[in-house]
């Protein structure tokens, strides 16, 4: 078992602050500033989970993801939200990204940190439909870029095989 950094380690504090600051950007759908927190070689992946026998050795759908993004595709998604015709988020959802269980791990490269977190996204639309939740774990790689940290890799492990949300017009 690798050991996480102590919670009072300055690197852990920096990583934790990165995730919390990011959650506020995502709640506010401030996607342009959010894109700026990603490295140009960002890999942003959310595999499709499947129910398999304990001994099967896999619980992701082979070769299939919900998100499998690079900077271009994420930029296109953000650009779409900025148009006047992205109906799915106009009126916008009310979003709350709850981030917890944060653990930070040092890597061989001192400009990079691995961070694990748990996330619960609450999403409410309109006044009639029930609100929706997505529960997931995240494995991130943060990279030091000048005087700030940026997100270089995110692996999102959703806890549902069948999502109970009408679409993923959100980021996790």
């Amino acid at each position: 078992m690798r050991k996480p950094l102590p919670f009072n380690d300055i690197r852990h504090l920096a990583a934790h602050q990165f995730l919390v600051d990011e959650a506020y950007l995502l709640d506010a759908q401030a996607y342009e500033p959010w894109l700026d927190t990603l490295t140009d070689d960002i890999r942003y992946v959310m595999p499709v989970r499947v129910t398999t026998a304990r001994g099967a050795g896999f619980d992701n759908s082979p070769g299939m993801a919900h998100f499998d993004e690079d900077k271009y595709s994420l930029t296109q998604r953000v650009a779409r939200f900025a148009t006047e015709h992205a109906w799915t988020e106009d009126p916008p959802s009310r979003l709350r990204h709850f981030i917890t269980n944060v653990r930070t791990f040092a890597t061989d490269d001192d400009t990079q940190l691995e961070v694990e977190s748990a996330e619960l996204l609450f999403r409410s639309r309109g006044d009639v439909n029930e609100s929706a939740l997505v529960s997931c774990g995240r494995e991130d790689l943060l990279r030091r870029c000048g005087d700030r940290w940026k997100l270089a890799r995110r692996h999102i492990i959703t806890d549902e095989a069948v999502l109970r949300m009408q679409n993923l017009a959100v980021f996790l």
Partner: protein
Amino acid sequence: MGPATELFENVRRGMIPAHIYNDDELFTREKERLFSRTWMFVGHESEIPQDGDYVVRRVLNDSFIITRDSNGDVRALFNMCLHRGMQVCRAEMGNASNFRCPYHGWSYRNDGRLTGLPFHREAYGGNDGFPKDSQSLLPAPSFASYNGLLFINMDPNAEPLEEFLGDFRFYLDYYTKQSPQGVELRGPQRWRIKANWKIGAENFSGDMYHTPHTHASIVDIGLFREPKAQKRKDGATYWAHRGGGTTYKLPPGGFDERMSYVGYPDEMIARIKDVWTPRQQQVVGDDGFMISAATCFPNLSFVHNWPKVHARNDEVLPFISIRLWQPISANETEVCSWFAVDAAAPEQYKKDSYKAYLMCFGSTGMFEQDDVENWVSLTTTAGGSMARRLLLNSRMGLLGDDRPVIEALPPDAFHGPGRAQVGYNEHNQRELLKLWADYLA
């Protein structure tokens, strides 16, 4: 007592009682009269390539294990133990030689035969009490495939699948036969939407009219060069027996040029020419139409589009998706969306095509996001009492006396079977709902 005959008369003339999109009684009737008698898609052979591979799929509330047994035969077995009715397989996919019931340990070979029954002699007196050797998990009442697409029909006396599909097979080949190897499927992504299953099926069958508006944002960001309002109405919609779809009109050129225009590499075009009939090629090469979305009655849809997948250049690349609108209730649907690609395609093409799919369709797709927003809103509103007083006008493409606004294309302008016409219209949505009415009435 069933619904009033007036309801079906209205549907047949293209005036749709709005409540059919959220009505518990009609959903019960759909289960009794439609889903119990029609061919329902459950998966594709490529999802279970090896002996022993299986996936578990539902036909509404009935769970089936779709297995490739140890002899390589594909079967559909009702996922319920013969003894006390427990599900013998609770995983969604995997590889198994046997399925063992967790309740009392009865076990079945992957071809369904009962092979293990603990204390058979002590508890049943052996075969005298329970002749286990002749027992098997119940097979699906009817089970058949076309181009590897697997279908179950709950009616043991169902008409053969090929007859059911009829001329729509001509169009199915475009999506599922681009080489002798056929397609391979990945996924599905699965998610639930609070929308009636019919809405998506109708939309994919023929709604070219929504593209320029609903999907305006896709054009705004330059992801897709086609769906400008002017271009979309130049396409043709076709209906052939149990299915129909939409097409785009392509710029001038022959078959090869037009296939390249949407992004097929030369080696794929060569293989496609070996497997598509001359007539199938003429729709593209002579007539200039490229298939896009389609629906096979009742709830299986297809999409073929060609977005820009890289920042570095303007090249587009095609992707294919197959999707099932799995009904959960009158106002809820589980969407199962697969990525499909020709099995013989180059690896880089498969990679890029997958990327194109994820950007456009599926749980995160940029087209799909706006569609679902509309369908959920429509379904919610259809559940109220005012919806029972409203007939939705689905007569686009028809004049008051039922003559078409635009005449059907003659056979030399559209070489595919069935009826096709250019321009905005709702012919296909009406055809789909007429079939629905035929089953329910």
